[in-house]
């Protein structure tokens, strides 16, 4: 047995958008064990809930993450609405669905760009981000901001999208589809991408399920588990099948995300067809009392917002379990046996968002 050395990786590293530190136990070029540590960007957001009105906290909940911001805000609203048993109007649910799917599109395009960048495919990175700009413009036009939308509130949504604008968004995405298909083909079929990502950081179906992997990491292992299937917001009235791959490696995770771009476009187009007329919010009266777990599917996987309230305007406990936090254990396992040069790619393949994970 050769000598083991420990290489510190991160928290500052060119490939990491956010600070996670890994102690890599190496044997020559191979990783024997990886020990993650986080805690560099802990903001104590969960504690802040005790000082803020539960209706205003949605703007803070939205700022847990700078990418899946809308879905954080929406899940927080679901949790509070679940405690209060508020009936959200159907139109609001549809609008939430549209914005969620736009978030997913822009997040996946961002991640695909980052992945291309991590494997040294610079022009693919530029192409992905160029297409992402189109989605961000739709976001800004309908909500008022590119990434922190702030359009969700307890009891409904703050802004309406006219039916004409919804059709325009759906048609705009239809025009984008051929370009996205070109992009997907490069990620899925290109031989250099397959060589770089294939067989890297492999997890079996059993491992991924038992370690608590969520989102694309789990679906890349052949488990068709998508929280959208539980039918929150308007997903119970829309038709979709989760994208699934079976290889369980970095390539499969990329392919799942590339495929989900089209699921999102389909869902937005269906929502634009089916959206009912009606009010977009209900009046919130009284204070919440009780507890509720709200789950939704973020671009990175399943997120949980747990809310406990005692009948005052401040909540007692707000707990967020983000997909990255749950994906840390599968990441550690999938890194065993890979080479040092592959570590950045494997770390990026779970789409780490440490700011989310630490809240």
């Amino acid at each position: 047995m050769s000598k083991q050395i420990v290489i510190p990786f991160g928290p500052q590293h060119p490939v990491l958008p956010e600070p996670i530190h890994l102690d890599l136990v190496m044997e020559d070029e191979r990783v024997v064990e990886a020990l993650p540590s986080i805690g560099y960007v802990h903001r104590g957001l969960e504690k802040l809930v005790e000082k803020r009105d539960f209706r205003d906290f949605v703007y803070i909940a939205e700022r847990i993450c700078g990418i899946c911001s809308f879905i954080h805000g929406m899940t927080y609203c679901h949790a509070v609405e679940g405690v209060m048993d508020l009936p959200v109007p159907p139109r609001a649910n549809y609008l939430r669905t549209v914005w969620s799917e736009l978030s997913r599109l822009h997040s996946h395009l961002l991640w695909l760009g980052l992945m291309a960048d991590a494997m040294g495919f610079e022009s693919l990175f530029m192409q992905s981000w160029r297409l992402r700009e189109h989605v961000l413009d739709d976001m800004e036009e309908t909500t008022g901001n590119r990434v922190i939308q702030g359009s969700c509130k307890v009891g409904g949504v703050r802004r309406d999208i006219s039916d004409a604008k919804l059709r325009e968004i759906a048609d705009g995405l239809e025009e984008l589809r051929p370009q996205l298909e070109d992009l997907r083909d490069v990620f899925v079929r290109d031989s250099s991408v397959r060589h770089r990502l294939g067989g890297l950081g492999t997890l079996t179906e059993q491992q991924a399920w038992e370690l608590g992997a969520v989102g694309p990491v789990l679906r890349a292992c052949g488990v068709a588990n998508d929280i959208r299937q539980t039918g929150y917001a308007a997903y119970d009235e829309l038709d979709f099948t989760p994208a699934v791959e079976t290889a369980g490696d970095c390539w499969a995770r990329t392919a799942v995300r590339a495929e989900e771009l089209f699921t999102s476009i389909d869902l937005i187009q269906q929502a634009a067809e089916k959206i009912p007329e009606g009010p977009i919010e209900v009046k919130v009266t009284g204070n919440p009392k009780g507890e509720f777990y709200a789950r939704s599917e973020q671009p990175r996987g399943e997120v949980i917002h747990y809310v406990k309230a005692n009948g005052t305007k401040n909540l007692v406990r707000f707990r967020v379990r983000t997909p990255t936090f749950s994906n840390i254990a599968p990441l550690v396992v999938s890194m065993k046996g890979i080479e040092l040069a592959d570590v950045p790619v494997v770390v990026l393949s779970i789409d780490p968002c440490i700011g989310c994970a630490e809240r």
Partner: protein
Amino acid sequence: MGLITIAKTISRNVFGGPATRRYPAEPAKRYDLTRGRLVFEPENCRLCRICMLRCPTQAIVVERKERTWEIDHFRCITCGNCVDLCPANVLHLEPVYREPEADRPAKEFHRIPEPPPENADAGCETPGV
């Protein structure tokens, strides 16, 4: 097949024009709804303090006695909560962002003018008028 895809992408990039803008030489992209900056009009403010109490970042400080309204723009996250809640509609969002600033804190200070005497008791609970 790969060549055709590449040719398509290249021609789009060459003839399609740049995807970016030459900001600040050209103005940034804006929409009607863009939440750029918070604007306050002191004339009709009723000093009800709702904006201060419901601000998620505690950026606004209202003093009833001194009749002042103050915001720290570095704290403000332009969520627009105060704009939605203001009963007198003296707050609104403009699509243009604030100019960059280096000095902390970036405070904006307003003195609320005294209401004319005949309006003094029309829904105004300000003490000492």
